[in-house]
């Protein structure tokens, strides 16, 4: 369960202040697959970084399972990012001189998992995102954009987070691979009760989510979607 309360984030650029997140409030039940759509520059990435405790709001709060992020000290926020959040960055943000496997293993290393166990899990995750086995040990800066995107998704899943925040996870993928990633995410939310919030321009993805939000000039509104339940009924 994640509650977002009157979240505001302002930036100063010169003498102007911009408000990419302007009084945003919503709640997500555990296990929900939700999407945020909106124009470029509407504040989607800014909102996601507030939810992922990468940035601090100007005002307002995010409450995760009853715990307020605003009141957490930095050390606790680090633990929250490591244990509870899987973040897929719009720019991937992988470590360029490490291999794909090593990148996926990093969050597991930080949470103290044994080396053999994390190597095994990293390999499985890379298979799940359909990265060719011969590319598992290849350095990140020798992978294509789409391959890097899938490594980034695998890394986000590494510590089995309760909340996955994905910023355009299918933006660099072909239609077929994108379908597969969408399938992977909806399986996670359905079978593992993982809450997933994706920012997307991908209509196919947005239509497969339980809920859909639109961000316009910092304001969040919810749009009706065909739920998975109704989709299943109508085929």
């Amino acid at each position, binding site marked *: 369960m994640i509650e977002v309360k009157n979240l505001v984030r302002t930036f100063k650029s010169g003498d102007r202040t911009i408000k990419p997140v302007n009084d945003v409030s919503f709640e997500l039940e555990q296990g929900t697959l939700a999407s945020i759509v909106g124009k470029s520059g509407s504040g989607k990435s800014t909102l996601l*970084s507030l939810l992922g405790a990468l940035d601090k709001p100007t005002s307002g709060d995010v409450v995760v399972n009853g715990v307020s992020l605003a009141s957490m000290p930095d*050390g606790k926020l*680090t633990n929250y990012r490591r244990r509870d959040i899987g973040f897929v*960055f719009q*720019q991937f943000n*992988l470590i360029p*001189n490490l291999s794909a496997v090593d990148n996926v293993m990093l969050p597991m*290393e930080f949470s103290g998992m044994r*080396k053999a166990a994390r190597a095994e899990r990293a390999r499985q995750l890379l298979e799940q995102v359909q990265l060719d086995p011969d590319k598992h040990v290849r350095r990140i800066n020798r992978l294509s954009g789409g391959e890097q995107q899938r490594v980034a998704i695998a890394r986000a899943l590494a*510590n089995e987070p309760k909340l996955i925040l994905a910023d355009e996870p299918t933006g660099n993928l072909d239609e077929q691979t994108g379908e597969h990633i969408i399938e992977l995410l909806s399986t996670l939310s359905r079978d593992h009760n993982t809450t997933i919030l994706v920012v997307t321009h991908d209509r196919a993805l947005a239509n497969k989510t339980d809920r859909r939000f639109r961000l316009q000039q910092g304001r969040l509104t919810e749009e009706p979607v065909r739920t998975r339940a109704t989709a299943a009924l109508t085929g």
Partner: protein
Amino acid sequence: MSVLARSVGNAFRNKVRTAAVVAVLAVAIGLALAMLVANQAVTGKVAELNASVGTVLTVNPAGGQGFEGGGEPLTSAQATTAAAVPNVSSVVGTKALRLRNAAEIAAEAASGRTGQGGPGGQSATSVTTSLTAAVDAGTLGNRNQASTGTTGSTASGTGTTAAAPAFSLPITATGIGAEVDSTGKALQLTQGTGLGNYTAASTGALLGTTLAEKNGLKVGSTFTIQEKTFTVQGLFDAGTAFGNNALYVTLPTAQTLAALPDELSTMIVTVNSMENVDAAKTALQAALGSGKADVTQGQRNLETAVSSLDSVKNISFIAFVAALGTAGLIILLIMVMLVRERRREIGVLKAIGAPNRTIGLQFVLEALVLVALGSVVGAAVASLASGGIASALISSSSSTTAATGQRGGPGGFPGGQGGPLGGASQLLTSVTASASPGVIAAGIAAVFGVAIIGALVPALLTARIRPIEVLRGE
């Protein structure tokens, strides 16, 4: 992949830069180690000099020294008196004899030159031996012998001196009451054992290396003094040609050979510390009576050597600390640069939940990898350079010492041991030889300590990096 593996990997990310950093570090670390080695060697030497020479007083009979001068001989009773003086930690009596080769005496007697062995009052009897001196008389020997030998060779007259055939030098045999040389320094045995109890009669003898070599003697060989057979029990190296043309027997043996059982040529009085030397000297002089004994601080000129070595010690220590600090500073600057360069990556690690200490540790380890490489190269540099640096430091500062010490040098006959000059050259050899692995290890430990401090500052800087600042991109 672990923190350590990542650190090692990062250390080699930019190979050209790594090589440059390692080279600069190696110079600083090498210099630090070389200075430490020099410092340790000199410190050891200073301690040794302070302990052995700086605190030694020599007591001679009033008006006499060695085989020259006159006055009344010292006695065993005076040794007891000396031992009772405050701050005196030990008194060692010596009895010096001059040995002449029996065959040569016979030859000289035949040619009319007699009694060469006994100028001065103390050792009138010529003691014969089967040994041949290891030092050729040369110009100095002939001149010394001519001037001091006139009393003994009146029979031949001055006119014959110039025409006299070259003779060999006498050999100094000293009876010693402990395993020290005639200046009170511990004997440097190169082979064999000591004589055991130096206050009992014994047929053992310790020979200088060149004397033994000249006579073809080894440990266990025998030779004669006054037709008595002695066994070589050990060889010593005094560091000088003069000092090595000598032999030592136990004190009672020498007294028996001289047929003067209660007499001492000198007493070597050791004072418990350098500060008490002057007071003890005055007290000793008073106790023995100024008419009976001359108390001298045998090697006072070495104090200059000690003080100049002390300055070398200080200079090398300051240089060690400075080089160490430089190594630390290099690490600090390099790591600050690396942290700035990898801000984005550090932000990513934080964004995926890396604790600050993990990131800090990663950077400290990376610094240590660089320092380890620098130390390996630096230690190699140091082991090549430290000998040269140490001797350069010492020879520049001891040239003044050698100049002031000259007066005890070749001019003086048996009394002067050529001490400071011989001492300085001994210093050089022992200082250059002492680049011990222990000292190098201690130096490298210090380098690592400084490197950790140097790397800690940039590592702590990483804690202040906020993930969002960097994820936005530069």
